[in-house]
């Protein structure tokens, strides 16, 4: 966002646009290695996340300190409230690592949207959500196949039991779409769309504030206060959304895994 802001300062009002998510490349322009501001934000988020947790893990003791308690609360939250509650205690332990990593990574990428200087969510560009969704896709299909075998898993997924045979004409295509296309697609799109929307709203509020306070004349300046308060509230809201989307993502992942590995009724 820094670059566009610099060029358009003279125009007074920078309307947020989709172009924010495609900043100018910094390195290797035009190749698959193309590196821009958003990639840098993601790397920073990943680095901060890893450093925080590696340090926490290094210092982890039997009797936890304050910091370790916070970290363990997060880990416990995913293990108990997501994995064990949805998948069930007996089967959950295999997927706790996946769910924890997903939750913390998404949370970190989401939160960069409100970090001053970064100001864009790492998950607002479709790449991360798609790769996360693919990871989940592979995991829940793999879990289902491992638990039931390919044929049985397909039969279980595509021909839900307890339905009259002629209904399969209707049900099987729907189930196929759900299991193989809609689940991963909605996972990726939900996350990306939430972050894009959040970014656009924030930028709208703060660039309007900038415009009203510094460039508008007379009574119009008063609107600046309103837009600033809105921006402030939206920032807090984005913190909530960041956590909520991370939570929704792992909850749905747990649900899909649970549906794949559950025993037949």
């Amino acid at each position, binding site marked *: 966002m820094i670059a566009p802001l610099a060029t*358009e300062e*003279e*125009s007074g009002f920078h*309307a947020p*646009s*989709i*172009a924010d*998510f*495609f900043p100018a490349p910094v390195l*290797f322009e035009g*190749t*698959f*290695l*193309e*590196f821009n501001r958003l*990639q840098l934000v*993601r*790397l920073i988020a*990943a680095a901060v*996340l*890893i450093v925080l*947790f*590696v340090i*926490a*893990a*290094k210092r*982890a*003791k*039997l009797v936890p300190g304050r910091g370790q308690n916070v*970290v*363990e609360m997060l*880990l416990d939250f995913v293990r108990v409230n997501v994995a064990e509650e949805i998948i069930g205690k007996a089967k959950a332990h295999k997927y*706790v*690592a996946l769910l*924890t*990593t997903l939750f*913390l*990574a998404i949370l970190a990428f989401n939160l960069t949207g409100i970090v001053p200087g970064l100001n864009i969510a*790492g998950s607002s*560009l*479709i*790449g*991360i959500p*798609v*790769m*996360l969704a693919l*990871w989940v896709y592979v995991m829940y299909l793999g879990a289902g196949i491992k638990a039931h075998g390919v044929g049985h898993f397909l039969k279980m997924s595509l021909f839900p039991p307890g339905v009259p045979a002629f209904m399969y004409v209707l049900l099987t295509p729907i189930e196929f779409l759900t299991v193989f296309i809609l689940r991963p697609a909605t996972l990726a*799109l939900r996350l*990306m769309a939430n972050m*894009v929307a959040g970014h656009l709203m924030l930028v709208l509020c703060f660039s309007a504030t900038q415009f009203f306070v510094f460039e508008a004349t007379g009574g119009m300046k008063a609107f600046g206060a309103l837009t600033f308060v809105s921006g402030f509230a939206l920032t807090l809201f984005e913190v909530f959304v960041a956590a909520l989307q991370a939570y929704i993502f792992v909850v749905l992942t747990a649900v899909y895994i649970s549906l794949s590995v559950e025993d037949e009724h």
Partner: protein
Amino acid sequence: MSAAATAASLVSAAEEGTIEGTRLLLPALYDIFWSTIVLAIIAFAFYKYVLPKFQAVLDKRTELIQGGIAKAESAQAEAAAALAEYHQQLQDARTEAARIREDARTEAGQIVAESRTKAQEEAARIVETAHRQIEAERQQASVSLRADVGSLATQLASKIVGESLEDTARQSRVVDRFLDELEASTTANAGKGN
């Protein structure tokens, strides 16, 4: 900046927007590449180090807590056992004391009875001895009395009848006969008296 330029930039922005609308949904190759790299790094760090480390710490803590609970339970059981044993010992001691007291009482009774018997026997023996001694003394007295009486009577009779009774054998016979008569008359008198 002129109005025309602003309009133009807005139009271009709008055009950009329409073009890029689909770009939001279709990941570019570089996006996928960097996303994969970043996710792989995070996943590596968490799978290889962070999560196992925390798991190990949590496991150790659980073990410790369970160990502590088990230890506390065993200590409590031990304490309960010790208490039971103590109660048992106390009970035993009380029973023992009661038994000893009972024994002592019985023994004391026996001792009293025994000594009473002994005392009675002793008393009886003493009485018996006394009786015997008295009897013996009485006989001795009666014998010596008889002798004395005989000699006195003889002396008296000698004085009365002169020297006729000097022969010792005769003298003795006479005295004995006299005494026998005397005794017989005494007994007869006593029988009459009764």
